[in-house]
């Protein structure tokens, strides 16, 4: 069983907050193939197209037959722990701040010997299961846990650096006036979040979802309007230093095309809420979250944007909405780069059509908000970076990867 994580305490105002540091971030181009796999939670290594040899560390030519056709394929993630050490000294500030640190060499069933971060319960000569995780610097690393999951695995102090478990953390959900906002709040509470802060704009507009959020335990509602700079600045000044996971579920979807529906006003609102809203949140919550990313085992850890899969390809039935999502996606990539410097990971969840009032006439399959919420929580717990939710989103991603022109010609609701 993993040593249970200590419960978070209130901050001692006389103590200095630990400054964030990052593990070494230099990687070769081919090593970032691991990052792409880790982002979606796959355990994949390079496999030679000619002789099938599994390669590690990543490279450009097969170490067996010198062929250069190496493809990333899912491989068996099992192995045996061959040797281990507990590091008591490091040349790097990040690890110095966190010693002792367990490491091991795993002989993978797939073939290679792999240096891995070791979970607490791993035992030498025993079988382990490996994962591709993303470390604090934003690059893929290999982690090993016992083959059979042990109790309280999620509390492992080392592995927690690479995942964003809401357990014992404080979460801000930006929009509490949608059903998705409600379900995310419910699931965060169920996942053991220490506090859930929920934002609400336009206080004169009532919402049955917000009323239900009001009844949840450990949950508080705050005024937050992402179209209003002062509103975002004000909330950040109040609770910014307590936000450990930020879930940006800003949402403003209206159906319609482009040429036959000229509506700058709606497009303006979509951009204000999805794009400028993200800018405001980033400007005022970003800096303080970065400062707290090394603030103990429950420190600030992740920023998650809930985006539509149509951020990846415009759906002409949702023309300006898709474009505003694409704008948000582009900005989130910058946010990812800037927040990474402070040890905070930016995740994006991509959903297909959701079962709500604005997507009422979209044909099935549609996602119910509770499903989306659960997948978001799981993605945070697993440390993924791109959470593709639902069959429609998965299909969109697969078809774009295969031939973007093909899906461009056929996409509609």
């Amino acid at each position: 069983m993993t040593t249970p994580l200590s419960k978070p305490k209130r901050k001692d105002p006389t103590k200095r907050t630990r400054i964030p540091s990052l593990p070494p971030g230099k990687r070769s181009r081919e090593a970032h193939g691991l990052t792409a796999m880790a982002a979606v939670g796959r355990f994949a290594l390079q496999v030679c197209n000619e002789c099938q040899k599994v390669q590690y560390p990543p490279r450009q030519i097969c170490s067996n037959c010198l062929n250069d056709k190496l493809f990333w394929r899912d491989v068996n993630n099992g192995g045996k722990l061959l040797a281990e050490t507990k590091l008591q000294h490091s040349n790097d500030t990040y690890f110095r701040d966190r010693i002792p640190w367990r490491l091991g060499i795993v002989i993978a069933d797939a073939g290679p010997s792999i240096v891995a971060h070791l979970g607490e319960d791993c035992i030498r000569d025993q079988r382990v299961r490996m994962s591709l995780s993303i470390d604090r610097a934003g690059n893929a690393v290999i982690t090993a846990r016992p083959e059979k999951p042990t109790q309280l695995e999620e509390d492992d102090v080392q592995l927690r650096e690479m995942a964003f478990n809401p357990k014992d953390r404080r979460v801000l959900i930006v929009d509490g006036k949608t059903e998705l906002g409600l379900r995310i709040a419910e699931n965060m509470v169920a996942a053991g979040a220490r506090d859930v802060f929920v934002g609400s704009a336009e206080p004169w507009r009532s919402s049955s979802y917000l009323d239900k959020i009001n009844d949840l335990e450990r949950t508080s509602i705050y005024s937050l309007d992402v179209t209003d700079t002062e509103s975002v600045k004000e909330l950040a000044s109040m609770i910014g230093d307590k936000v450990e996971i930020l879930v940006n579920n800003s949402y403003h979807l209206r159906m319609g095309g482009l040429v036959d529906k000229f509506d700058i006003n709606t497009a303006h609102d979509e951009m204000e809420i999805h794009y400028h809203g993200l800018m405001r949140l980033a400007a005022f919550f970003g800096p303080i979250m970065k400062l707290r990313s090394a603030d103990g085992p429950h420190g600030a850890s992740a920023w998650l944007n809930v985006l539509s899969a149509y951020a990846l390809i415009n759906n002409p039935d949702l023309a300006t909405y898709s474009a505003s999502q694409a704008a948000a996606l582009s900005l989130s990539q910058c946010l990812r780069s800037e927040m990474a410097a402070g040890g905070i990971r930016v995740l994006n969840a991509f959903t297909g059509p959701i079962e709500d009032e604005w997507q009422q006439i979209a044909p099935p399959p549609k996602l119910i908000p509770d499903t989306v919420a659960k997948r978001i929580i799981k993605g945070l717990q697993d440390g993924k970076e791109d959470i593709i939710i639902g069959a429609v989103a998965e299909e969109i991603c697969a078809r774009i990867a295969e031939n973007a022109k093909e899906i461009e010609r056929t996409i509609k609701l």
Partner: protein
Amino acid sequence: MDITRNKYDGIAVCAPVTIPYTRYSLKSSHWFCGQSIAALIKRAKIKKEAIDGFCISSFTLSPDSAVGLMQHLGTSPRWLDHIPMGGASGGVALRRAARAVQSGDAEIVACVGADTNHVDTFRNTIATFSQFANDAVYPYGSGGPNSSFAFLTDYYMREFGAKREDFGKLCIAQRENALPVKHAMMKKPLNMDDYINARTIADPIRLYDCVMPCAGAEGFLVMSIERAKFLKLPYTQILSTIERHNAFPDDPIQYRGGWAIDVDEFYEQAGLGPKDMDLVQLYDDYPVICFMQIEDLGFCDKGEASKFIKDKDLTTKGNFPLNTSGGQLSQGQAGAGGGFLGVVETIRQLTGEVLGYQVDNVQNGLVSCFGMINYDRGLCTSAAILSKGDL
């Protein structure tokens, strides 16, 4: 087709020089290389221009290689080699220089292993050591070679039953051998208690299993025996050498090195066996690697090194003189200089020009080199058997 390698007839290895080690230095590697060349020409009483070949090994010369150094030194050699093989460089330099002189491509080759050590040198060197280290080792703890060798030591100890006391015996003997060397980093005798209870660096490696990085240089000259006699330089002769890279790539973890592949040819070329070695210099970045070399160089079977040294006295007065000036574990590791330390000490012992204790009645010396932990194992190995030259 059976190809036998040429012997090293007619080649002399002489003029051992050492630029004293310091923990940190403001000087550049170019300075340490230059000091080494100056010391060599002074010892040999030759002009700078008489050296027409250079074999250089240095991490901190970067961004220069041996090429940039030539412009620094103001010299125009007709033969030049830069050896990026870290701890294996000494033995490899010897091989390269010997063939150059033998073939007539050069007359006098200066071989130098040198490195400076600024306060951030070690950190910078290991952070940019190799692509595989960047991608697959350094992000895991940034422990440098300590974590990699911790794995090897952990595996070796469990697989073969070696105890920390066994490694301790080696470290303690080497410390005694180092005591008379003025510039050695470690100046006090070591006892088993201190060794066993030292601060843990990375289980099972503790403080006295690790070398101390420092600045310094080691060098020697390679020339014809005629030339050595003419210059009245005591010299040694090369009886055999071996070299191997990326040996046993399919071993899941490193427990043997490249020497094991070529060991038979090694002794065959020399016409000698392990029992004929009067002194042995082994590359000692960590005690476990010494144990591997003892096994892979034919002194005992794999896994038996602990047993082998039990009845051996490893000091300069003992029955198995090992790392007779203390090795890197007591002298310090002057970067690539560490790869030359064993070669230079062998020449010193066989020519009577020691800095520490002289071992009695020496004729044949074995030196073994190891280096370049690239991903999870040391890739380069070399070894040489030198014998006292007749004057």
